[in-house]
């Protein structure tokens, strides 16, 4: 016998890899949703473990051909298992809960009985909250584009050696917690706060009231304050992707456009804007989706008349204890956002993302 290590040649390594991946992912999701319990769950987890071991063994002992083909599945596995346990399983649980009924007001466990009434209630009772959520987050998204695009443009094209410093300043608010920053704005915008004081001093109250940004001399607890908070909090998420896409734009293209009879304005419109759209698109997703589900800004800067769907979901989950209804509301929110994003990406979408 030679001393060479025995190499295992598996005939269809990619099928083995994919099979092990799907089996392990499915079993882990099943355990996570508590479809499998007790000894079955132990068995399932054992199988998941065994499939990982099998993959590692094949990947280290296999022939070069086998190893090359199985490697991608090995690299996918940690991420896929993570998603199976912490994304697929909760999603399925939420869907199941949204179709369940609470036997009584104070019951802890809901019974699964294909109860679609939760969805009807979500639509009929929470229409205004849904509307506000999408209106506020929509306006905030447009405002972040309006404020963030010029800022990203200046940093990318005029930043020079201060580029990194300016980018650092954009990110610096993240060093303070989201919650604390929002609460800080509450005190700034409050009736005795500095903002209201300044507006009064410069006699701008009347103007802002006409624009609908103040209500009876108050800044706080108005829709404008909530939108302002959302805009403030999500601005960096708009600036950074736009900056990244602008930074990649070759300035010589602007020269080329000018050489081909375009003014600076139309060179910007026809060359820079189209090339930066992927950044605007990414920024919109990063802003609109979390803003639509946000409850912190409405909670601290708004009033009961400005509650967004996020507040209602939180209320149903944690205060009213109506888990099935809250789950249904979450699902409706998710569905509407998905539809919005699909429509949006059809119009603006770039090959990169859609």
């Amino acid at each position: 016998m030679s001393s060479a290590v025995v190499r295992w040649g598996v005939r269809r390594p990619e099928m083995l890899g994919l099979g092990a991946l799907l089996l392990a992912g499915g079993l882990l999701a099943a355990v996570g949703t508590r479809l499998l319990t007790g000894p079955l769950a132990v068995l399932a987890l054992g199988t998941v473990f065994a499939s990982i071991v099998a993959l590692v063994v094949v990947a280290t002992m296999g022939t070069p051909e086998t190893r090359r083909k199985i490697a991608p599945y090995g690299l996918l596995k940690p991420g896929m298992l993570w998603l199976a346990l912490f994304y697929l399983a909760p999603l399925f649980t939420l869907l199941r809960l949204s179709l369940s009924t609470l036997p009584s007001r104070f019951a802890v466990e809901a019974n699964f009985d294909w109860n679609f009434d939760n969805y009807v209630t979500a639509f009929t009772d929470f229409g205004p909250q849904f509307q506000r959520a999408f209106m506020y987050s929509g306006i905030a998204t447009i405002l972040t584009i309006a404020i963030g695009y010029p800022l990203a443009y200046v940093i990318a094209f005029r930043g020079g050696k201060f580029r990194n410093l300016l980018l650092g300043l954009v990110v610096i608010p993240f060093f303070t917690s989201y919650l604390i920053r929002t609460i800080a704005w509450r005190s700034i915008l409050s009736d005795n706060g500095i903002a209201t004081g300044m507006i009064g001093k410069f006699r701008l109250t009347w103007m802002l009231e006409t624009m609908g940004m103040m209500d009876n001399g108050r800044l706080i607890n108005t829709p404008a304050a909530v939108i302002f908070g959302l805009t403030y909090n999500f601005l960096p998420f708009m600036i950074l992707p736009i900056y990244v896409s602008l930074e990649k734009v070759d300035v010589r293209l602007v020269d080329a456009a000018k050489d081909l009879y375009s003014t600076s304005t139309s060179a910007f419109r026809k060359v820079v804007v189209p090339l930066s759209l992927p950044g605007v698109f990414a920024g919109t997703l990063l802003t609109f989706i979390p803003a639509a589900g946000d409850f912190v800004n409405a909670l601290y800067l708004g009033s009961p008349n400005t509650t967004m769907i996020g507040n209602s979901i939180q209320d149903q989950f944690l205060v009213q204890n109506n888990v099935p209804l809250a789950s249904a509301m979450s699902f409706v929110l998710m569905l509407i956002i998905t539809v919005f994003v699909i429509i949006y990406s059809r119009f603006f979408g770039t090959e990169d993302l859609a």
Partner: protein
Amino acid sequence: MSDVVIQLDHVQKSFGDFVAVEQADFGIQQGEFFAMLGPSGCGKTTTLKMIAGFEQPTSGKVLLNGVDVSRVPPYKRNVNTVFQQYALFPHMTVVDNVRFGPKSKKVPKSEYEPNVAQMLEVVRLSEFADRKPTQLSGGQQQRVALARALVNFPSALLLDEPLAALDLKLREAMQFELKRIQREVGITFVFVTHDQGEALTMSDRIAVMSDGRVEQIGTPEEIYNSPATLFVAGFIGSANLLPGEVAGTDGDDTVVTLTAGPTVRARTDIIRRVGDPVSVMLRPERLTATAEARADGRSIEGTVSDVVFQGATARIVVHLADDSEVIASVITGTDLPFLHPGSSVHLSWDPGSAYMLAGWPRRPGATASDIDTLEELADS
């Protein structure tokens, strides 16, 4: 000569204290293939940018078809540029790139569409019209850039190092391609290059620039055979520059006593008095190696120090009496038994091959870069 399309009228460009272009004053003719040649930093690209409108002269005027455009922005000038890295719009297809100019100019679609099709035909890219620039090779991108500029039928096409980004083989093919396209469309081409071979191959006239100054403007033959300055002599091709003093005249020729010893006869276009410091330029390929001296004062004697075989020719390095080195390029195959290191040799030339210039070179003999190249070859 025909009409002047571009006229630079005492154009000066400074960046702070640095003078990038000094008193550029020349005209470019209609239909001409005009090259601006020089080492990097000589001001050739700055000159091109002033013609395109991306830079404005500090003083002097740029005239386009007789109109002063010195302060006119690029988009109002009827010249187009082929940029060094092409600068094609990556989000547009080839045909949309070509349409960009006429569309911006608000030319009616019915008018420009035939031109767009024709230009794609000229650059042989019709079947790639719907591709994105990233799906094309370097040479194809280059041709898109050409079509995009030419479709506007500019008064002049400006090309900024158009071949620098291509590999050697493609570059040679594109030289002929550019020449063909230029003949086909009949538009004035002004191109900037640091590659003397490119300039000599393609241009009708060349402006050689150095340190912001135009050293000489002329046809490739004029510049090669009768360089106006020592810089031009050394920059274009290989040259042996031998310092000496004017001793007198003999017919059309000037008699020069070389620092290295011998007295030789040279052709010249400059007027010098006896005793003036001058240099005699000898092109390596115009020199022949002989065992005997030539009687008419058209040869110099030296010692062979190196023979580098290069196939059709061999380059020999010859040490003169004053220890300067001269390179001669001789045809191999002929029996030249005396050509081995250490042997004595006479380098001779035909009437008209030696050319006299004003001034002394910084270093007598062959250009330093030529010596270095040959030494490397000899060592390997």
